């Protein structure tokens, strides 16, 4: 290593610094009113849950294509720019910033699970862009007043709502069928750790006698659930709460069947009623399975819902997921706000979206769903629990949520945990 070499190395380093810095800038486009409205999306497009990103993006695309086909607003159409965060919070944060600053996106859709959603949330807080969380269901994201900021909204369901409704639903069945011995399984991460006690709490507060005989916390994306299954088997429960989702849920059910786990156990699986999951499970739990409506085209049973599902199917050749409708609703809030304000100015949009009602396939207030202004998250979306059957329509006997009751219990909960 002599002098000249080291100098070359330093120069090379300098060049690379410059290049990596300038590359995104080269593609930067100036803002002008005639330009398309650039909208960003970060989500998981690779690895085990690539499906999350893909169906989220599809949900958005369907809306944006309709908007553009209708001529946009004032000649301005929407252009979607998506980035793969691979589910890593640090990448979600970085890409969100990059979309805002170098791609010039004033509107960001955050298609991230809980950890990354919080990271993107932090970036949005210190920026002037509008952020719509379309995936993260973690209650804390909007319930915690300390985390709120004027420009961040959520169009996804909230874990607490599912727990409130599911708890009441499960309590009723438990009382009818005399189920007292409960086991739980959920992935060991923020959402699982939060949803499980909430759900069980509401089962109890609805008057069912609960004896918790086993808790299992497998890792997220664990391939083998044998140890969890045998642990649950040992405890001989009558009912099982299951917070797993996607491929994890399918693996768990497939493997559980081998052990006859579900021969005598009623399963309350929040995430089962989603088409992709339902169609992958080859053998449903024998003694009965219940689920929240993730997304099924028969609930709410309205023509708007069925036709949206059909349109999605026609465009993408697959059925929509829970993530698709969450994205769709988020897109509709943004599009409505753009139309109303005739601008893409984040501050104006944010003001318009607060308290806004939009028509949605899953709307429950006269076909509409509402962006509650106080915490900027949606309410009055399709929420209900029902029994799973092996074929279309998959979810039957759906008990719809009484939203006024949900909101009352939510307020109680917030007061209890100190978010009120």
């Amino acid at each position, binding site marked *: 290593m002599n002098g000249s070499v080291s100098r070359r190395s330093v120069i090379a380093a300098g060049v690379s610094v410059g290049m990596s810095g300038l590359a995104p800038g080269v593609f930067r486009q100036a803002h002008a009113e005639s330009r398309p409205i650039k909208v960003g999306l970060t989500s998981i497009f690779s690895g085990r*849950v690539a499906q999350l990103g893909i169906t989220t993006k599809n949900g958005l695309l369907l809306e944006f294509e309709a908007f553009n086909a209708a001529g946009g607003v004032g000649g301005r159409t929407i252009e979607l720019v998506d980035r793969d965060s691979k589910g890593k919070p640090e990448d979600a944060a970085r890409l969100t910033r990059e979309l805002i600053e170098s791609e010039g996106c004033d509107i960001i859709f955050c298609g991230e699970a809980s950890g990354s959603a919080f990271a993107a949330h932090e970036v949005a807080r210190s920026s002037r862009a509008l952020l719509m969380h379309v995936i993260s269901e973690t209650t804390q994201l909007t319930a915690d007043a300390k985390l709120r900021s004027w420009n961040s909204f959520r169009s996804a369901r909230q874990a607490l709502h599912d727990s409130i409704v599911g708890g009441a639903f499960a309590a009723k069945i438990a009382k009818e069928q005399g189920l007292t011995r409960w086991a739980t399984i959920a992935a060991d991460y923020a959402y699982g750790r939060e949803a499980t006690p909430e759900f069980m709490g509401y089962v109890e507060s609805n008057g069912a006698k609960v004896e918790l005989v086993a808790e299992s916390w497998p890792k997220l994306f664990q*391939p*083998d659930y044998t*140890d*969890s299954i*045998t642990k649950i088997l040992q405890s001989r429960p009558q009912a099982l709460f299951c917070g797993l989702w996607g*491929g994890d849920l399918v693996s768990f059910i*497939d493997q559980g069947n081998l052990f006859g786990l579900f021969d005598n156990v009623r399963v309350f699986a929040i995430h089962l009623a989603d088409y992709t999951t339902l169609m*992958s499970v*080859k053998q449903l739990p024998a003694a009965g399975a219940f689920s929240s409506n993730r997304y099924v085209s028969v609930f709410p049973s309205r023509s708007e819902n069925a036709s949206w599902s059909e349109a999605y199917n026609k465009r993408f050749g697959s059925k929509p997921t829970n993530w698709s409708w969450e994205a769709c609703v988020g897109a509709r809030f943004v599009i409505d706000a753009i139309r109303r304000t005739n601008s893409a100015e984040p501050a104006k949009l944010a003001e318009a979206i607060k308290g806004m009602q939009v028509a949605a396939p899953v709307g429950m207030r006269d076909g509409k769903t509402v962006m509650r202004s106080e915490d900027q998250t949606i309410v009055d979306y399709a929420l209900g629990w029902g029994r799973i059957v092996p074929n279309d329509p998959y979810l039957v006997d759906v008990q719809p949520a009484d939203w006024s009751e949900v909101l009352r219990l939510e307020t109680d909960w917030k007061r209890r945990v100190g978010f009120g």
Partner: protein
Amino acid sequence: MDLSALGICAATSSCIVTQVAAGLISGFLLFLVAAGLTLIFGVLGFVNFMHGSFYMLGAYFAYAAYAATGSYTAAVIAGAAGVGALGAALETSVVRRIYHADVLLQILVCYAFILIFDDLVGIVWGDEFLSMGMPSAFKRAPILLFGGVIPPFYLFLVGIALAIAIGIALLMQKTRYGKIVRALADKPGMVAALGINTQLVYASLFALGAMLAGSAGALAAPVRSMTAGMGFAILIESFIVTVIGGMGSIAGALVAALMIGLVRSFGSIGFPLFTEGLIFVIMIAVLVVRPQGLFGRQVREL
């Protein structure tokens, strides 16, 4: 920590039977993958970071064959043979050029293949997770033994894995091929001097290792949801097994894989939050006390 639960479990035959069976099942599947890794590692000295991809591809090949023929036997054969052939092709085209390159370069090339295979799987089979479904022959009630529950399919898996384990042991101990391989691990130069086509032996060994991983993926396919990237978790576990058991030692891989399986199954009852941690503690302890692994040969003296 819930050691009382572990105590209660240890006192009931049903719990012991179920947990031991569960531990053996995960252990044997892990063994199949790790056996291939440890062979490639121990004999070829190649850090095969793409071994998890072989497992994944085995599962997907099996899925495709099962969808086409409806036969689980055909699916397993397709998984094993397909990946074996891929392994042979990779060895002759790329891997043999980097046996003597630095470990970093080996890892880098493997990393590239992991990315490529994951993406190809997404392109061919889609990004949605797939589920193959249980062959009808195994759709039957679990076997009850002393109150413990054992699924017939897992009994079958353990049987097959055991048969493969014995098969490899015989291949390595009793055949001329095995002798050549063991000699290669010790003194590659000597074997070449004897006029044996070492390149062929290397390629076949790499293919054999890949085939083992592929067969594990294919065998487990009915009880795993398949996605691109599913090989990742098993890769890390296989490395742990290889290190604990000792590089190149089939017996070591078996013992270590079963040990991990049992730690998992009993750990989930006694200390669910530290099962993972405990496995790493075991690995650290083995490396500190006996770096060559439980069954590895002594690190060369002088």
